[in-house]
Structures are given as structure tokens and as C-alpha cells.
């Protein structure tokens, strides 16, 4: 397991509401939902790239959801995606191998936390 994954809080549930400066539950639920939908699709495509060793597309896909991951408070995911983007740009296959091995599990953990948080918001 890399430092990227362990050293950073996986999901900061306060991050998004604090950054937009408002506890607008409906809007927060919409944003988390958008993120889950988008990130799931992109990660799925990244796994295909991994098999096809398409580094360039892999880097572009990582870039695509890096900032939104950070925006919703999925900091560890943002950092891992940044590392993947960098390794893809450098065509560093061994680093990519490590990062891409971690990605599905980290995504699953974070998505679960976000879904739980959505349920908390909806019931509040």
C-alpha cells in the first residue's frame, strides 16, 4: 500500500459544504451523485486502458476526475489520480502497475463512504 493511500483522509465529508460555503443539502446530494456517476465510468475506462497499456488515454482520464475528486473531499483519490497521471505521462509502467492495483479498492471504499454520507444528508 502506498503512502498516497494511507497518509490522507479518504473522504472528508465536510470539505464540499465548507468550500461552497453553504449546507445546501439538495445541492450537495446532487454533486455527490454526479461525482459517483462520473467517477465510476472513468475508473471503468481506466481499467480497460490498463489492459490495453494505453498510457496517454489513461493519463487523460485521470486528469478528468482528479479535480472533481478533490472538490468533493475525496482527497486520497485525487492524490492517487495525480500520481497515475504523472506516471502515465512519464510512461512509468512499474509505478502505474502499483497505482492501478490500488485504484479499484480505494474507489470502492470512497464511493461507499460517499453513499453513506448521501444517506445521512437525505435523512437530515
Amino acid at each position, binding site marked *: 500500500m502506498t503512502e498516497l493511500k494511507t497518509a490522507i483522509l479518504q473522504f472528508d465529508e465536510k470539505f*464540499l459544504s465548507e468550500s461552497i*460555503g453553504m449546507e445546501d443539502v439538495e445541492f450537495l446530494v446532487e*454533486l455527490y451523485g*454526479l461525482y459517483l456517476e462520473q467517477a465510476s465510468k472513468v475508473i471503468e475506462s481506466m481499467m480497460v486502458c490498463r489492459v490495453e497499456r494505453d498510457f496517454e488515454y489513461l493519463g*487523460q482520464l485521470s486528469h478528468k*476526475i482528479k*479535480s*472533481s475528486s478533490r*472538490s*468533493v473531499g475525496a482527497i486520497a483519490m485525487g492524490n492517487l489520480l495525480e500520481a497515475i497521471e504523472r506516471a502515465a505521462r512519464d510512461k512509468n509502467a512499474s509505478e502505474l502497475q502499483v497505482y492501478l492495483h490500488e485504484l479499484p479498492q480505494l474507489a470502492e471504499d470512497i464511493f461507499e463512504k460517499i453513499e453513506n454520507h448521501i444517506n445521512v444528508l437525505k435523512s437530515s
Partner: protein
Amino acid sequence: MTAGEFFVTRKTIAIVDDDPVFARILAYRLKRYQFFCESYNTATDALVRLGRHPTPDIVLLDYSLGPKEKNGLDLCLRIKTMAEVPVIMLTGNDNTQTIVSCLDAGADQYVLKPYVLEELLARIRAVIRLYEKKEGVGSESDFGDFKLNTLEQNLSTSEGSVRLTDKEMAFAELMLNALGSVVSREYLYRVIYEREFDSLSRNLDVLAGRFRQKVASVTKDFSIKSVRGKGYMMYRRPFNTEERSFDSDD
């Protein structure tokens, strides 16, 4: 020009970014500062929109529009051939090559991601101001009994004219757009001072008092009143009503 600068008519911003989460958050934040926002996640959608009139007042364009999309630079070049609209590029790279490529593609400004809202707002104002001066538009707005001129910074009626400060202009525009309705203190404060509402600050009350006096210098038919616990309202005085009889609680 101060942070309180404003525009007489609400401006429309087109946000073009392949990241819908980022675009929604940005739109949400800008709307709180009195902008209309439209979001487009693909170059194709953005181009369709820019082909229609009226065009947005400004485009905020992501440098990297995603793997299968025309990149932001190409789109910027295309936009510039289609419409006289200012473009601010949003980029995650601060290297010279990226910045030069943005400007060479015709971008009027660039802002680094993650952006600082105050800086982005300042750059938006700067480019809109330049375009309005260039086109000679946006200088005067007609609110019926009042005219507000942004270039000369004055408020006029058939009885006279008075010069306003930047913040008084912002206050005037917000009040005139909502004539007869209450505008909340929180909203006024956030838009005029461009920061979150500070309930302890008396700045807004001082500003409202000053603006009320200036309105009184150009007309006896209208005034401003404070509505306790809610905000401020500009209203037409009832016929034969004594001066300040409605200005009850501030």
C-alpha cells in the same frame, strides 16, 4: 477599481469544462455574486450555444476538455472567430508554455486551478470592463424613473443627477432591480463586499444611509427603508407622505 465593482445588468457566464462537478460548483459560487451561469461539458455543446444570440458575456474555458474532445486551445481559437466574447482559460499548469499557448489562442486572461474565487471574480470584471469600453456598451441602464450610468458613475432622475461611489453604484443597482421588494442583508453584503456576510459589520447600514441621502438629493418620490430582520427595500413614497416617515428602524 475596487472589489465592489459591479455591472448594471447581470452578466451571463458560460462555463465550459468536461468535469460536471467542477462546473456545477463554479456556477453555484458565481451565481451567489449575481452572475447568470450556463455550463457546457463538451466543446460541441459550447459551440452550439455560442452560435446563438445573445452570446454569453464571458466564457470560462477549461484548458483540458477531456480525452475525446477538442482541446481548450482549439475551442478558444474557434470561439474567437465566431463571436466578440472574452475568454478566460482555466488551467492546472502554471508553466510558461501553457500560459503562452492560452494567450496565443486568443484567451484574454488565464486563471490557475484550483482557483481562488476572489481572483477569478477580479479577472472576470477586468475582461468584461475592457470589452464594454471597447464596444461602448453597458454605460447606462434605464430603470424607469432612474438612470444609472456606470462610466460616469452617477444616478439621475428628471430632477437631477448625483455621483456615486463604486459601492453605492452596486447598492443602487441591486435596489433598483428589486424596486418595491426587500433585498436581504446577507445577499447585499455578499455581492457588494464580495465576502461572506458579517452580521457585526455596520458597513452596509452606513452605505444604505449614504445612498438614501443621495437618492433624496435627486427625487422626493422614492426612498430606502430598512426592514427589520430582513434587509433593505427601495420604494416609491405614497403621495403626500412626509419625508422619512417610512424609514423606521435604522
